[in-house]
């Protein structure tokens, strides 16, 4: 068609580029870090990037886990030694917290996101 103008092709190319860029996000879902909790033979899964709080029952009582700002810790637990609370916050795949007396195991799963420097942990 004679009436088409050069700008049309610029817009077309930009649009195709946007679509190609939007395909990139397919890969982002596979390696998303997840928090897996095992307690009493059952398993729970949470998204590390969504703030939540959940309570799990074990032989001694209940253990409350908290996810906040991409980090996990045991907020409260009925066990006597409170080692799990003392373990503090974890945030990277492969890290875990265990509450032995109450049989609650918390593990972060997923591929390593980026090389994180130790300084980041204190900076945030």
């Amino acid at each position, binding site marked *: 068609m004679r009436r088409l103008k050069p700008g049309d092709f610029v817009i077309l190319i930009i649009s195709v580029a946007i679509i190609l860029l939007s395909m990139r996000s397919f890969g982002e*879902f596979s390696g998303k870090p*997840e928090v*897996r909790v095992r307690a009493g033979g*059952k*398993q*729970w*899964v*949470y*998204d590390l990037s*969504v703030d*939540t709080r*959940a309570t799990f029952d074990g032989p001694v009582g209940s253990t409350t886990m908290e996810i906040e700002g991409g980090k996990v810790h045991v907020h409260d637990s009925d066990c006597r030694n409170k080692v799990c609370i003392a373990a503090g916050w974890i945030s990277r795949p492969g890290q875990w917290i265990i509450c032995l007396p109450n049989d609650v195991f918390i593990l972060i799963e997923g591929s390593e996101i980026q090389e994180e420097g130790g300084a980041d942990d204190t900076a945030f």
Partner: protein
Amino acid sequence: MSASQATLLMGILSLPALLLQDNLLGIACQVLYVIFLAIGRGRKFRILPNLILLISVSSAHLLQPNGLHLVSLGGFSVTLGALLLGARKALTLMGLLYLSHFMVSGRPEFPGKLGKLVAMQFYYFEKITTGWRSIQPKRPFIGAIDRLMLLLEDSGSEPASISTKGSLRATTRVLITNAMHVLVLWSLFFAGYLGLLPAFG
């Protein structure tokens, strides 16, 4: 107030009862109720589009695991919390949709200048649909559209007036039944809110 406006008002008063509901069983009952309301006004209910909405919204929420692990599908965990959240959201959307269908089933007249314009738009809409049927041949489309538009401009606007004003008694009856619908939908909200209905997960 006309009967169609009463229905519109009823819908507006009931909207928050659906939006604020966060009990799955509660919203399911509300949805069922408004679907029957819409069907009562001659609206068709089709399973497939609703099923697609329910499945797509629920499965989209699975990407964000939350709660008890049910099964793994190819290294991907299906969790109860995510499933329930997705189902609840999809049901809320369905509820709003059918409540909306019910609200405008009487073709209520909207107030103000915009209302008048919309009325005029509908008047021309009727003319276009009848005009399009009379146009032969329909191909090429550009020629057919051309003839349609030229035809409409020549005809000008001479709309028929239709009265929708019902009798006072009929309006009162409509008001009472609508008040009952509002009551039912809000009762279901409070049943969920106060924990009278079982919560899953």
